[in-house]
């Protein structure tokens, strides 16, 4: 089976993750230095800031794209490592299906959360 397509997708996902996770890191983990995108002030993880970001269209869309790209990149990478540890040929396919299933479940959970949070009361 030709792996070129999968591998190109893996590299594309890496680029997407680099951009979006870079943004995520600036917003959430370097908030003390940059202090941007915390419209209500204070910590980026304070409820007011979290819910404001969650309700913005931009963050909802980028969260879902980041989720998909990161899961693909991560699980394809993990599969590569597992395959290179030399499993028996017979179990390779089993690994692929297992990792695909776990990745899909995580994607559904994350996407559901990103969409469901838009209807949560801002102050409860």
């Amino acid at each position: 089976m030709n792996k070129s397509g999968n591998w190109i997708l893996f590299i594309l996902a890496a680029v997407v993750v680099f951009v979006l996770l870079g943004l995520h890191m600036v917003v959430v983990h370097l908030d003390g230095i940059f202090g941007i995108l915390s419209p209500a002030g204070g910590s980026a993880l304070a409820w007011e800031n979290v819910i404001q970001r969650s309700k913005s269209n931009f963050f909802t869309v980028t969260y879902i794209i980041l989720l998909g790209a990161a899961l693909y990149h991560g699980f394809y990478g993990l599969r590569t490592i597992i395959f290179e540890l030399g499993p028996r040929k017979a179990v390779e396919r089993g690994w692929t299906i297992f990792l695909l299933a776990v990745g899909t479940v995580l994607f559904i959970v994350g996407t559901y959360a990103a969409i469901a949070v838009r209807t949560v009361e801002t102050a409860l």
Partner: protein
Amino acid sequence: MEKKRYDNHLELLGWVAGGKWGIERYLYTLHRITGVGILLFFMIHIFESSTRIFGMKVWDPIMAAMHHPIFKMGEALVFIAFAFHALNGIRLILIELGFMVGKPEQPVYPYQSSLNVQRPLMITVMIIAGLLILLGMVDLIFLA
């Protein structure tokens, strides 16, 4: 008659030891370790951050719990892993798409192997990763 052979594959030892290896081998190993570490964190992170759908009453206690030093240490580790993996990843993408490895040339000494060609890039991305880690740690320790 089947002759007996001794299996001399280095297995996992080959990723870190078993000979006198160069720095790119350790970056290769570190890239894998940080990758798996980030993926583990990411799986937990999806569930933990999804709790925001239950509203402030659930979110605030969880965030309060995250202020425990153990979680702060974890956050620091994930940030370091991310900074390394991202910057080294840029180098690898450039190299694996055929940039920064140089053109084939006759091996007449002193010639530039692809390792020599990419080394300035390697040093540059490692310095940037180091600066990024410094920035992240300053934020985490003094400003958070």
